[in-house]
């Protein structure tokens, strides 16, 4: 093993200094299931679906810096059981009615559930009462499906420079809110072209009056599972002199 490699399920994974375990693994073709991790944003470490076992202890691979000599276990029955339970808890906590959800087939949570073999929610559903925010003329917020990944919060602040969204409350009471005195989306400067409009992994932030325009069979996760797509889409440093912004790591 060289100075710049670690072991993922026994396979040698090369890394660049500053990369996290999940960044190096995906770039090298090693899939680690994940949900709140997005290659274009700073790691967040909240959903814990990317949990791995490192030298006998569990850690979120999206926030764990890659280090030479690490022995990482990921694709094991024990870890996959934990991931499955985490995804089940997300399904039980919100109101995820996939059959009539516009995001069905394009939804990361649903795709991850299929890929991990989640057959039921496994827990008693909370059935929370979460009214939608339909105040904006072009955008609908359906809080029923929020998994608190904060991707919209990050995108709106870091890319759009608007900070339209935030999380409020703690523990079970934690929820997504809109940064406006009225609390309504109509009173923000969000626009259809914002980055926040495209990052939601589930069906919370939706363009209004667009429902099922994309047929079954042509949706993102219809042709192949999320695990195959995550590997194909993972940012990799170009072989030549090109530039890969998503590969850049913080010093």
């Amino acid at each position, binding site marked *: 093993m060289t100075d710049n490699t670690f072991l993922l399920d026994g396979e040698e994974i090369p890394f660049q200094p500053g990369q996290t375990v999940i960044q190096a693994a995906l770039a090298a073709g090693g899939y680690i299931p994940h949900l709140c991790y997005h290659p274009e944003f700073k790691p967040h470490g909240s959903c814990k679906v990317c949990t791995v076992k490192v030298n006998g202890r569990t850690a979120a691979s999206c926030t764990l810096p890659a280090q030479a000599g690490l022995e990482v276990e990921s694709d094991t029955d024990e870890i996959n059981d934990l991931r499955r339970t985490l995804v089940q808890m997300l399904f039980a906590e919100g109101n995820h009615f996939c059959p009539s959800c516009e995001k069905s087939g394009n939804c990361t949570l649903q795709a991850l559930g299929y890929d991990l073999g989640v057959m039921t929610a496994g827990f008693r559903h909370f059935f929370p009462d979460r009214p939608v925010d339909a105040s904006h003329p072009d955008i609908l917020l359906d809080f029923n499906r929020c998994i608190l990944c904060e991707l919209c919060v990050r995108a709106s602040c870091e890319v759009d420079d608007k900070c339209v969204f935030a999380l409020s409350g703690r523990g079970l009471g934690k929820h997504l809110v809109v940064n406006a005195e009225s609390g309504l989306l109509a009173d923000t400067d969000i626009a259809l072209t914002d980055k926040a409009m495209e990052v939601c992994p589930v069906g919370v932030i939706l363009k209004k009056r667009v429902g*099922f325009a994309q047929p079954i069979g042509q949706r993102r996760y219809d042709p192949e599972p999320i695990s195959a797509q995550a590997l194909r889409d993972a940012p990799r440093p170009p072989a030549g002199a090109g530039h890969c912004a998503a590969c850049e790591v913080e010093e």
Partner: protein
Amino acid sequence: MISQLETAPHPETLRRVAIEPISRVEGHGKVTLLLDEDDHVRQARLHIVEFRGFEKFVQGRPFWEIPVMVQRLCGICPVSHHLAASKAMDQIVGVDHLTPTAEKLRRLMHYGQILQSHALHFFHLSSPDLLFGFDSDVAKRNIVGVAAEYPDIARQGVLLRKFGQEVIRITAGKRVHGTSAIPGGVNKNISKEERDFLLKDIYQIIGWSRDAVHLAARLFQQNLDLYNSFGRFRAHSLSLIRADGAMDLYHGGLRARDMDGRTLFDHVDYGHYRDHLGEQVKSWSYMKFPFFRDMGPDTGWYRVGPLARVTQCDFIPTPFADHERRDFLAFERGKPDGGAAGATLGYHWARMIEMLHAAELIKELLHDDDLLGADLVVTGERRERGIGVIEAPRGTLIHDYQVDDDDLVMTANLIVSTTHNNQAMNEAIRQVARQHLDGRKLTEGLLNHIEVAVRAFDPCLSCATHALGKMPLEVELLDAEGSRLDAVTRDLQGFC
């Protein structure tokens, strides 16, 4: 009408027999009979014991979700709800006329639905009664028994249904619960390969559908006295009708006729359905009782579905089916209490004529290049109210929505096909109870007569599917004090 059998004067003195659940129908319901000490039937009711609640929980949802959400009402004819809701949402987005491609694709989907649903009902659910007899050996009175004794009939039934499901898969995206109808049009066309795939079998399907009509007719004619009189009652009728009087299962105006064939209203814009139809609630059923407003709830109830449609239309616009319609109407016409067109069991014959019609329409559409077109959606100016009506396999289906300025549904009113037939089904079981059960010791075979009457309407009592007539069934015989005297139980394997 034998309304005196709806509510007995002193029910506490009578013993109760329950058929619960009714088997070989879609969904869950039960029939209760109250009998006096001489086994005379004093009360007979069909109860719908499920509550779906869709009208309530679509409130507050965005309107574009509705066509996909409400089809979950049912796993047997979801296309009907998908299309009725889509027609309502067309109006919400201000569209009165779809592109030819969009309308023809929706129609193709609908005719696939009619074909598969009618095949399922006749072959899988009802043919065991019709081929073997209403009180035949219960162990073989199911589709497995039909497959053993009449393998060709069973095979054709299965393949007819399969073809209908393939039409739905290709037009809607999935065999069950597809998504292709959207407000203002459809989200996909079909490819030349898909069209050719369906064309390959359609002539065989038409041939088998003709055979099915003749089988239904032959069964009726072979058991003429029984079929003519079984659960027979006089009733008004309601259906959609095309502007030229032709049968049209996808779109048209409302036509109603009274029990003597006189027109009550005709070519009524279904947007005004509330002016003509009312709904009554009774304490003993979750299903409402619709009626013609001009007549009131006591005498204004009516029939919908294949029997109403085939007898009310001026003609069927496909040749084979129209020929069969004329034979059907002419059969025993003029004889007192004769004629398949007024018989409860005439529903089966009429249903097969419609299946043939659907097969012929599918053939016509498959030769139409508009199906391959790319002009799929039109838009218009937003409206507040959308009403969509369609002739579902079981009858007229009404979806009515109001949508607020924020695009959320405020109210929904759904009158599903089986609801229209609520009083008619109650009439049928009361007739059968009086004709066949009154004063006799009850047996499984006699009780099945009640179910045969319910099945003729192909009711979708809610939306559940179930396994091939093997629904567990328990019939209890109680004395006036409620003590159990006797019971017959059928287990999950369908054996008593």
